[in-house]
């Protein structure tokens, strides 16, 4: 499978001496939906900045669809669309002008730019706002505007740096659907996010970066398999007994109608339900205590 992105030995030391990247290696396959996770200051935005040539690397190699950013930067750039973390468009320009001008910067004719701008603004529910100055948009609309702008030249690699930060749940989910659809149509996507649920539901492969180094780089299924223990929250229909025990399981009574049960890898939920049923406890609903990826994320970073 061809590579959308190849990073080898990438280092970045800022002018103040801060070493943001300590020689990372990273590959992203064409067509992938890839998560790049890490705590604040881990080096995610620096990595993205270098790929998009907004940040100068200290050393190392970056190739986008085989094109080196050292030797063939202009062609590498043509394949990239980027949605940055911070809003970075003119607050005085209209939505339409921002998207159409961006197409012009990539050499798209005015007619093609207009055609694409209309298509993406409609898909992202911004068509009615096309004549509005960008400063008048809500936070969610501004995020969608940056996505439309990044897509207007139809890049093969779309990089999204926390695209759903500060976006309400409903809109976040509609953006997930949109991004999943873009990915299905062939665009490789790299996503950084603090919503680990987002990465778990969208991405097939994942890298976790911490203190400028890759802490983990694998596929999502393999990563989640590393979970040894999951905690479930169970809601009972009737009041729970004060002394509650399930032989072989760590159980905690949270309140009169709620308990937490820890299940080791390979454990059976059926067994838990059988034991509860023997005690006359009927369960009405159940959920994970924490996001599974979040647990892994915390444990991986704690190991370092």
């Amino acid at each position: 499978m061809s590579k959308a992105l190849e990073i080898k030995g990438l280092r970045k030391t800022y002018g103040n001496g801060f070493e943001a990247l300590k020689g990372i290696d990273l590959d992203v396959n064409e067509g992938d939906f890839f998560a790049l996770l890490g705590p604040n200051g881990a080096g995610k935005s620096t990595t993205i900045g270098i790929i998009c040539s907004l940040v100068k690397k200290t050393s190392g190699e970056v190739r986008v669809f085989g094109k080196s950013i050292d030797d063939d930067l202009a062609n590498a750039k043509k394949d990239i669309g980027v949605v940055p973390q911070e809003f970075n468009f003119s607050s005085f320009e209209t939505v339409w002008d921002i998207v159409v001008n961006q197409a012009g910067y990539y050499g798209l004719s005015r007619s093609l730019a207009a055609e694409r701008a209309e298509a993406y603004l409609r898909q992202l529910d911004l068509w009615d706002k096309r004549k509005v100055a960008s400063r008048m948009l809500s936070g969610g609309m501004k995020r969608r505007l940056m996505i439309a702008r990044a897509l207007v030249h139809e890049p093969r690699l779309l990089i999204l740096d926390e695209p759903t930060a500060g976006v309400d749940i409903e809109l976040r989910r509609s953006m997930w659907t949109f991004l999943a659809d873009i990915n299905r149509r062939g665009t490789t996507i790299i996503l950084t996010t603090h919503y680990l649920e987002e990465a778990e539901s969208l991405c097939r492969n994942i890298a976790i970066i911490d203190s400028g180094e890759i802490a983990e780089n694998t596929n999502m299924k393999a990563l989640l398999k590393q979970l040894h223990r999951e905690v479930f929250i169970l809601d009972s229909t009737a009041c729970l007994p004060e002394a509650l025990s399930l032989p072989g399981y760590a159980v905690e009574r949270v309140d009169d109608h709620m308990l937490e049960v820890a299940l080791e890898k390979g454990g059976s939920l059926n067994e838990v339900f059988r034991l509860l049923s023997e005690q006359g406890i009927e369960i009405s609903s159940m959920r994970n205590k924490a996001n599974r990826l979040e647990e892994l994320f915390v444990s991986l970073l704690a190991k370092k």
Partner: protein
Amino acid sequence: MTAAEQWIAFVTIVRKEVRRFLRIWMQTLLPPAITMSLYFVIFGTLIGSRIGTMGGFTYMEFVVPGLIMMAVITNAYSNVVSSFFGAKFQRFVEEILVSPMSNNTVLWGFVLGGVARGLLVGLIVTLLSLFFTDLNIQHIGVTITIVLMTSVMFSLAGFINAVFANNFDDVSIVPVFVLTPLTYLGGVFYSIDMLPEFWADVSRLNPMLYIVNAFRYGVLGVSDVNIGVAFAMVGVFTVLAYAYCMYLLRSGTRLRQ
């Protein structure tokens, strides 16, 4: 990018720049029109009538070329410095930096925006001056060439200023504390022949003197300085400014971390 794609990108920047200064015409076109009209009224009509002739021309005829050139210089410079710094300040310069445009496309896009505003303001001021005096342009080629070269040179200078500016104070320092005083002392309002020898020699170190006089030569046919020197100086400064702008873009100075 192909040459055709670079051309589209270049036109996109120029169109955006022109639309920007037309959109905010109350800040970009109206103030120089009012200021220069006041100069014409006060220096040309009210005070000028008491001064008499200068170099064989009425005082109004004498000051008009310098005032037109002052408007061109200030507006070409201000357009690029404020637009490019604004893009840096609001971070939408990143739209350009992530694109595959060449550095030349970016630079000349902004420079042509500055030239367009400089020339438009120059035209407005020229038309206003016709309410006060007649303009019989003596050397049309010299007039057009020097005004084009000057507006390109100061647009490039504005670009350099914008790259290094950290705040809006840095944007206004050069026009207020360098360009305006040098233009005032560059023979807009007087001929250096009127000055004592020492101050005339000092004035000859002022590059604005050559620019103003070259333009005055084009319009009136008279100059205090050698026109060839004026063209050579503007040419050399333009090439140096262009080379430095390209260096700044290539190295990413103050633009890429």
